[in-house]
């Protein structure tokens, strides 16, 4: 029962909340930089404007280019349905698996990279190649970092990991989960294209990764891509929050527990987003050649986390 409710509440919450999260993060940055900012609801206003435009695609592009935004949104939506954000009861429990969720998220990124190649422009290809460089280093780290947490639970089911942590809060301060948390934070920053790996607010060709791939999109397609990347940010922050600080997540179907779960999720993602945005103010973008160094470091931390969970505990 809780699974069905969660499967309805989680996607609705994340689809409506993700652009607000992006707006909130931009607002935090603007205030810290001494600007007034466009307001928290600006991403929604942008999306509404973009959805109202006509669909145009560049001449010479194939179906790959047209389907990619849909694949990106669809895979992210499936993740929001199955992963434990509000409740640990999943409607499609077998799909709430660590490997399935990471594969779904990677599928969306690959679809977008293919679309970038499909346009045949220099920027699209460059962005796609950079994205694949980062993705090839991010995916193993993501898997290994969460795997470190699943070792003690004995299951790669995300809901099982989260509910095990709820029942035994002492796990949170073990070396394995601390190392995994640091690795996961680095990986999430790289995967969602935030500073210092990618600058989300630039159109400068030297620095962009994500922007370069979606340069040819316009109108509703662009809106879908923007919405999906905002959703991915919420999904990653939600996973980080619930894997390491799972308090408040609903374990029963009681309406009150679900309400607490919703509020806890909103607060946790909001706080993490504000921290990320505040941190970005103090960072400069890393040179692209230094990024593998950063990601290799986080991979090592994830591996040490797995080692620690096997040998220390």
């Amino acid at each position, binding site marked *: 029962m809780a699974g069905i409710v969660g499967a309805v509440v989680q996607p609705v919450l994340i689809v409506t909340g993700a652009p607000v999260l992006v707006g909130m993060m931009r607002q935090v940055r603007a205030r810290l930089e001494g600007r007034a900012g466009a307001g928290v609801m600006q991403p929604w206003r942008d999306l509404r404007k973009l959805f109202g435009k006509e669909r145009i695609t560049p001449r010479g592009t194939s179906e790959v280019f047209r389907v990619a935004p849909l694949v990106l949104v669809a895979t992210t939506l499936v993740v929001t349905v199955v992963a434990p954000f509000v409740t640990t009861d999943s409607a499609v429990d077998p799909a709430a698996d660590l490997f399935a969720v990471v594969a779904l998220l990677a599928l969306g990124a690959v679809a977008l990279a293919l679309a970038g190649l499909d346009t045949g422009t220099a920027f699209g290809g460059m962005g796609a190649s950079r994205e694949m460089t980062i993705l090839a280093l991010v995916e193993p780290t993501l898997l290994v970092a969460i795997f470190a947490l699943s070792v003690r639970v004995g299951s790669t089911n995300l809901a099982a990991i989260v509910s095990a942590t709820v029942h035994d809060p002492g796990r949170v301060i*073990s070396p394995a989960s601390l190392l995994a948390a640091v690795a996961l934070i680095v990986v999430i920053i790289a995967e969602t294209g935030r500073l210092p790996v990618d600058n989300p607010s630039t159109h400068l060709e030297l620095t962009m990764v994500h922007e370069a791939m979606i340069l040819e999109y316009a109108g509703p397609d662009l809106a879908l891509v923007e919405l999906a990347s905002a959703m991915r940010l919420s999904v990653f922050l939600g996973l980080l929050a619930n894997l390491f600080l799972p308090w408040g997540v609903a374990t029963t179907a009681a309406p009150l527990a679900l309400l607490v779960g919703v509020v806890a999720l909103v607060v946790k993602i909001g706080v993490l987003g504000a921290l990320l945005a505040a941190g970005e103010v103090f960072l400069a973008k890393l040179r692209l050649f230094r990024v593998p160094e950063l990601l*290799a470091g986080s991979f090592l931390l994830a591996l040490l986390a797995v080692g620690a969970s096997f040998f220390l505990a």
Partner: protein
Amino acid sequence: MSETLFVQLLDLACGALLLTAVLVLWRRELAVIIRVFALQGVALAALVAVLAAREGSGELWAVAAGVLALRAGMLPYLLRRALASAGETQRETRPVVNVASSLLAAAVLTLLAYAASRPLVELAPSPVTAAIPVGVTVVLIGFFVLVTRRRALSQLVGFLLMDNGITAIGFLTTSGVGLIVELGVSLDVLLAVLVLQILTTRMRETFGDTDLDELRELHD
């Protein structure tokens, strides 16, 4: 102290030891490396203090205080003074093995340490001996830093990392090697650092740099 709290604190100290060793390998700024090394000294002292609280022995508490004073206070202070007189060379610009590869090498070294210390752990399985691979890892990472860095100062940090690892293994295997032995080893390390510091200063006076790469002469 209850059993679970003891194990948690011990594991936390070992995790901090491991994390700081990796950070030394990761960062390039010599000032940051020295600060991380001081943090590792704190972690090592915490490890000894946890064991001391467990055993309830005054001697171990004294050793913990000594480790804290030497490895988190004295040695970082000496290193910082050596760095302050260095002038321009504040960064490890070009290690022999680039940072990304050396981090992956550290992952391999970790696995090697786990494999190599397996028989040692199986001699007397307990939460304390289970942490021995961490000490071995720190020794191997320290050795790696020692052989792949060019600056004399970061090589010195590598040497001290090795020593931290050896001390950690000593405490984990024997629950304290005795005050006298520990005192002797600590004095030895202090002496080595002092000698190497003088050597570094002489090197800079003679060659104008502590970079051990001979090709630099062509630029000058």
